[in-house]
């Protein structure tokens, strides 16, 4: 029996941050929507917000139009600061395709 010992070519990976803990419930929470303004997000996100609001009337859903929209535009520290300032506790981001 012969053997080859070879490197795994995918390299090392680093987990430097953990995902945020999940909320117990959306009731009473503030949830923001963020949009890359692509892939029908302009239709889907308002509909999602409206339906979630109906399911969780005590929650506050801030529309995506109140934050920078666009792939690069929303991917900034300024957007994060805006979320913190508004007391946002969870974020729904769309759309990827």
């Amino acid at each position, binding site marked *: *029996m*012969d*053997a*080859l*010992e*070879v*490197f*795994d*070519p*995918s*390299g*090392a*990976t*680093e*987990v*430097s*941050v*953990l*995902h945020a803990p*999940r*909320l*117990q*419930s*959306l009731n009473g929470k503030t*949830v923001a929507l963020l949009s890359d*303004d692509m*892939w*029908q997000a302009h*239709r*889907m996100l308002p*509909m*999602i917000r409206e*339906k*979630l609001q109906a*399911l*969780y009337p005590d929650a506050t859903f801030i529309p995506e139009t109140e934050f920078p929209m*666009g*792939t*690069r*535009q929303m991917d900034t520290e300024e957007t994060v600061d805006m979320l913190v300032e508004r007391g946002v506790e*969870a974020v*729904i981001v769309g*759309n*990827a*395709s």
Partner: protein
Amino acid sequence: MGVVRNSVAGLGFDQDASMVIFPISPFLVDSDISPIEQDVHKFAEGLTDWKPASTETGIQNPPKVRIEANGYEAAYDKMNRQFITSTWGDGLPLNPPTEERVSWILQGTDRPRDSMIGKVMPRGGIATVETLAVTLAMSGGRPEYLPVMIAAIECILDPEMEHDKFQATSGSTYPVVIVNGPIGKDIRLNSGFGLLGPDPQHPAGVAIGRAIRLVQQNVGGALPGVGTMSIYGAMRTTNVVIAEDEEGLPEGWGPVGADHGGVGSGKNGVTVIVSTGASNIVRRGVGKETLEDEALQSLYRVAAYLRSPSAHYVWGHAKGTPGALLMPRVVAGQLASLGWTKQKIKQFLWDNSKIPHEEVVRTGLLQWIETGVDPATVASANDPMWPICRDPSQIVLAVAGGAHPTHNFWMQGATPKIATAAIDVPKEWHGLLAQADDDLGPSGDMCLI
């Protein structure tokens, strides 16, 4: 799904995310989005019930892979099958990246093997000198190729190149690496006939380009349909790794790297852009024109190829490039003899590739320009004649290709920056080149007309 998983991994999270997944149909124009409505509760569940796989931080180094079989040839075959099933291959045979082979490749640099080059997005795998040597070992590379590979990857990972985006996009993006300096000839990079394809006389470009692609896929996660949504994936088997034909540069024309802030004449360096397409342009006349008429007509013809309502131009409009034009030495020499400098050619192409506002509107390019990040790009949306980049100097013009007058080659850009880097060779460089001569036979141009 894979794109999102890669993206969060690239941000430093575990390679997973809370997602609500649908088929492509609702994401298309005028689509039925009722499937989203039916599953709207899943968005809430993603914020309350989803659980990540990883609960600890830290670096994870994958262990080596042991392949056992009856005989070396069987082990070699088994390794290739295993690398395909692990999605680490590209369909062509790979050399086993054993410690012996990787150590041989590492002779191409004096940098420590654990020296970090950067994280390759969107997956965020860590590229070290060793990682590049492993990949070059797999692709059929040699130690003398490693300096170009390192410099090219450094350019690709330059934050302003936004490689996380071109890696994951639906466009057919591929890196274009143009090498200047004596290293091009030293390592047998092609600058002449057939330079974009395989050539046993110049094997370096294929091996380096293939290795870059494997880094993109294996370390960066750009697996077709999973981590990259590139619909066609053109030109990606070997990317483009070529040398400029510096001996063919007309008097007064500098190397392409120097045009874009890289190293000057006689020094080793790379210029890297990202392209998304390739067009062969028949630029020669039928032979009965005057040289002046042929030159002018050919430049108008080239400009017509550049004058395209391409949304990719928006990406590179402010600081990148609309693309790279390859021009063989014969054509460059003819143009130079008529007084055409590089600068004058770029100015001509820029002037004559502007797009009338009516066409910008008619083709929907206007909306794409308005999505631009740079304010000046957005402000240009209503220019009566929209230039494909802000300044003519952004057009990359390299003298390369077989010494023949008929064609130019245009690689349209999708690149927010033209990246350049110096190439560092190891102290024992000449020994490596001597070994290459022993292994491959003497190098040299075999066909020039």
